[in-house]
């Protein structure tokens, strides 16, 4: 990287994540102006406009892509209309050891004097908890599931190529056309649609104005530019020109394309704090025409394009995730906001999507080594091996990125869910591993669901043994089950019971967002909100999917396998002894615990006996969730990923029959229990492939490899073969941590020497030293594959 990028990167890495009261203050100002005689969508649009008209404009020295969400890099706003932080929350954010956000006295004062007095009692978080039933709260507090929408807005979605073809003015034209076609005589929703569409138009205009303010600022800076070097002055003038053109109009070149996206991105993450922070989707395909044209007409070089991309990368890294507290902080303990750049895959016509920009992006990832944005390969059988091997050379450095997705399976998943083949090929994955149709789908993660906790409650006849409260169905005492089938039936009944509770809660929360916090700006970006005049939260997207993410598949499999084989099939252990051991957390039961660990078929070893149990759990979970209607005209689907929740769920789950002690982490994603896979990566892959990935919306498989394994090109080929084989078996996703356990232990002992150590956590990478000690231990204990 050149000096400019190195300096920007250094500044980004050194910037301290802070809380800024700017957005909360402006929003409060806006709402304090009193009740207006306007509809809710228009009010939200005017609030958005007010924010963009009044927030500070930040253009950092030397940068080529401009715009920050806060007043400076890593200044992170709060969203009091969703979650109004208490002063204790702020103190905790400021003081906590992991993932802190600095809170200065002025911010704290503002929170106390202005923001809390206005928003307390009005936030979405309070509305949600107020509406949830006692049984929902009991299950939530016990750690059966988490709730994604309680501090952050539903917003998992990704942009397609529309902003590169049409500008905001084009969208305004479409909005007007939609307004003109409203049928007030026979459509009872015509007025609602009118208000939503008007709101969208206000938002489109607001973003143009926001860009215009950057143009003005750039011109001011250009005039004030001291010294004889005309270069920066010219750059600032160019930036001013760009910001006057995009996003109002379609971009004319590579630079404008990136800047246009960035304004849109800022709009989305300023309007609300949606999960997964939005992302540009198929960036390589979107940029390829601009790149090719630029090279052809001599206005762009490869180096120039690379520099612009590097500047673009820094913008992502400057935006830490909105601060999370409580259970949400535990389930997603990271600064990463899950913007993920997809590369490769297929074109809409089904042909190979890899192009020169793909390789350019991989070079940028390799050189920048930033936490954000995350990156992934959409690897199709049509893509060349060169693409996979280029990524392998990044993976083997231990950076944990990019992760690798099976593009052909992702397309099948999307088609199975009812997308058109073109929309499916335009889709990909975002966040951790979630499948979606880019630019056309509202696909929300709604919360993690702990399968081992459900099993635990089953074994305790509906009681959560940690609290002694009855929170499930009374399906019978463990010692009374006469067969494994009887226990299994009880487990499935509990599963449906808790999924019912979760879905009921979700369906209320979805309506609360639709009613109170419409997102007209996000809506104008996602088809077919403009055409239908409906908000993103109101089912305006072409496709609407609600995901519930199953967690602890490996733990549940090994636990049920232990019961099946040791108690019922072999009679080696009595249920009474097993239950006594679980109650005692295996204290004084170590031989029994060892027996369970070592003498039970376990998932991850290509052992059909264990894997059959896994398949049964998968089917049961699928049946419990799949196809239930959500409130947006779409349906529920499953996926299997954990972020960091397997640590939290583990902490509230007692000893399990697989020999896991109380409080220890659960297995993560669809990976085997940490250390249970003893037959190498091919066995893990074979086991994991026995579930029907195509019926999910994403699964997450972690593999840890030692650096030696990938040291030479032959090792790299082996990595490619492993990935290709897994994908032939229709696996959805695989990612690799390439680091030896000794290095991780050293980093644990001397974090200051290993601050740069990035490891793959779940669907994302993070700085190892920022992880909790429990999570660090868990990553070290994930089986490290090597081969002699």
């Amino acid at each position, binding site marked *: 990287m050149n000096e400019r990028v190195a300096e920007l990167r250094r500044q980004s890495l050194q910037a301290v994540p802070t809380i800024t009261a700017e957005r909360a203050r402006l929003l409060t100002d806006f709402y304090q102006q009193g009740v207006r005689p306007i509809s809710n969508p228009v009010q939200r649009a005017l609030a958005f406009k007010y924010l963009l008209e009044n927030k500070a404009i930040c253009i950092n020295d030397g940068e080529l892509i401009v715009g920050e969400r806060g007043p400076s890099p890593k200044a992170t706003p709060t969203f009091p209309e969703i979650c109004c932080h208490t002063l204790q929350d702020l103190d905790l954010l400021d003081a906590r050891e992991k993932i802190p956000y600095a809170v200065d006295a002025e911010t704290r004062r503002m929170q106390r004097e202005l923001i809390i007095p206005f928003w307390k009692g009005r936030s979405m978080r309070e509305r949600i908890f107020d509406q949830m039933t006692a049984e929902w709260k009991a299950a939530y507090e016990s750690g059966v599931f988490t709730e994604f929408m309680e501090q952050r807005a539903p917003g998992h979605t990704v942009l397609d190529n529309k902003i590169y073809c049409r500008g905001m003015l084009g969208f305004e034209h479409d909005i007007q056309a939609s307004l003109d076609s409203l049928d007030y005589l026979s459509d009872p929703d015509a007025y609602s649609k009118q208000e939503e569409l008007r709101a969208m138009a206000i938002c489109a205009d607001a973003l143009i104005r926001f860009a215009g303010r950057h143009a003005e600022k750039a011109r001011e800076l250009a005039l004030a530019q001291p010294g004889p070097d005309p270069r920066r002055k010219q750059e600032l003038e160019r930036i001013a020109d760009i910001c006057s053109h995009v996003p109002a109009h379609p971009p004319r070149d590579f630079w404008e394309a990136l800047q246009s996206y960035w304004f849109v991105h800022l709009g989305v993450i300023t309007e609300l704090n949606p999960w997964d922070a939005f992302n540009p989707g198929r960036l390589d395909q979107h940029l390829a025409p601009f790149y090719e044209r630029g090279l052809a007409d001599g206005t762009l070089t490869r180096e120039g394009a690379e520099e612009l991309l590097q500047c673009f990368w820094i913008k992502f890294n400057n935006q830490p995730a909105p601060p999370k507290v409580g259970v949400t902080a535990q389930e997603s303990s990271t600064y990463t906001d899950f913007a993920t750049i997809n590369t490769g895959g297929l074109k809409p016509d089904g042909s190979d999507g890899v192009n020169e920009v793909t390789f350019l992006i991989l070079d940028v990832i390799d050189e920048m080594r930033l936490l954000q944005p995350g990156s992934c390969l959409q690897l199709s059988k049509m893509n060349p091996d060169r693409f996979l091997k280029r990524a392998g050379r990044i993976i083997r450095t231990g950076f944990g990125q990019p992760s690798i997705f099976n593009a052909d399976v992702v397309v099948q998943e999307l088609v199975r869910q009812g997308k058109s083949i073109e929309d499916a090929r335009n889709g990909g994955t975002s966040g951790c591993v979630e499948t979606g149709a880019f630019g056309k789908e509202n696909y929300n993660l709604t919360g993690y669901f702990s399968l081992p906790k459900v099993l635990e409650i089953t074994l305790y006849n509906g009681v959560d043994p940690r609290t002694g409260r009855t929170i499930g169905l009374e399906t019978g005492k463990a010692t009374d089950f006469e067969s494994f089938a009887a226990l299994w039936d009880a487990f499935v009944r509990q599963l449906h019971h808790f999924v019912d509770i979760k879905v009921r809660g979700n369906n209320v929360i979805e309506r609360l967002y639709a009613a109170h916090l419409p997102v007209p700006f996000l809506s104008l970006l996602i088809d077919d909100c403009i055409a239908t005049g409906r908000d993103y939260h109101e089912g305006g997207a072409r496709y609407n999917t609600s995901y519930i993410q199953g967690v602890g598949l490996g733990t549940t499999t090994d636990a049920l396998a232990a019961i099946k084989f040791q108690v019922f099939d072999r009679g080696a252990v009595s249920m009474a002894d097993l239950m006594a051991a679980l109650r005692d957390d295996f204290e004084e039961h*170590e031989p029994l615990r060892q027996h369970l660990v*070592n003498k039970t078929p376990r998932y991850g070893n*290509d052992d059909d006996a264990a894997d059959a149990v896994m398949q049964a759990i998968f089917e049961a979970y699928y049946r419990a969730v799949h196809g239930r209607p959500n409130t947006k005209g779409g349906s529920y689907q499953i996926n299997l990923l954990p972020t960091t929740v397997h640590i939290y769920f583990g902490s509230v789950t007692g000893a399990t029959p697989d020999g896991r002690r109380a409080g220890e982490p659960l297995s993560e994603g669809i990976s085997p229990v940490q250390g249970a896979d003893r037959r190498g990566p091919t*066995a893990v892959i074979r086991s994991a492939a026995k579930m029907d990935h195509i019926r999910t919306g994403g699964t997450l498989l972690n593999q840890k490899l030692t650096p030696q394994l990938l040291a030479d090109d032959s090792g790299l080929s*082996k990595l490619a*073969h492993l990935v290709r*084989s897994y994908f032939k078996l229709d696996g959805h996703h695989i990612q690799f941590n390439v680091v030896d356990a000794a290095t991780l232990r050293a980093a644990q002992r001397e974090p200051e020497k290993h601050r740069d150590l990035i490891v793959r956590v779940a669907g994302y990478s993070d700085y190892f030293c920022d992880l909790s000690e429990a999570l660090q231990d868990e990553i070290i204990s994930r089986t490290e594959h090597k*081969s*002699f």
Partner: protein
Amino acid sequence: MSQGVVFDIKKFSIHDGPGIRTTVFLKGCSLHCAWCHNPEGISANGEMWLWENRCIACGECLVACSDDALSLVDGVLSLDRSRCSGCGSCAEFCPAGALEYVGRTMTIAQVMAEIERDVIFYDESGGGVTISGGEPLCQPDFLEALLRACQEREIHTVVDTAGSAPPEALRAIAPYVDLFLYDLKLMDDAAHQRFTGGSNRLILQNLRSLAAGGPQGHAIIVRLPIVPGITDGDENIAEIGRFVASLGCIQQVDILPYHRAGTGKYGRLQIEHGLQETRPPSNEQMAQIAAALESFGLAVSHGG
């Protein structure tokens, strides 16, 4: 049905032949090299491994043992191998996996079932099966049956042999072997006998006959373990280079640095490692040896 004694089946084996492979380790060896890193492969019979660090001193194994070979004193488990008949019943009872029976008797069908699980990886990577040991030719009938079964299923086969076996046994399997990994250690027969417990006469003779087919004959990679102070002498390397070059058809020589990964196994078998003081060769030394071999016109690759 043909049965064999197998001491390990290792998946994702990537250093014993091309691609991703499954290596089947057959028990029993005609040599006992001082540097052996699979000492559990030497004896033809099943035997017990004792993992002291896994033992939780629960005493379940004492009840299971009908040979009175186990004792638990002050929480430390001991195995008296002079009494142990190698029945393996203690391993069944040991909850912690501290006692492990090494050397399962398996049928061809059982081994093939394991091998066939990873066919998709062989297909993708150009891999297959490697049969190693011990010395796989110590179980010639089982080895031949296994190789034939692989060939029937179009699975690529590699045999990793030290060549110390009756020529007819080698001849019998040769049609079913896609690639031989053929170990050479020492050219001086006295030294060979001293450090491996056997003569190299048969080994060299067998390699000559295998190579007699010329370039159209059997694919052979010669493998040379570099054990400091034993096999790394200039003269030994030069003689090996000269010998292999004279065969005219050897595609490649792999030099394998001595490593200490097998030392834990000696402890589990309660036998002493003969090379306590030996350290792995340096990268520089490996490079010098490679250069020496290359001077004979051989293609040399670093393995292991």
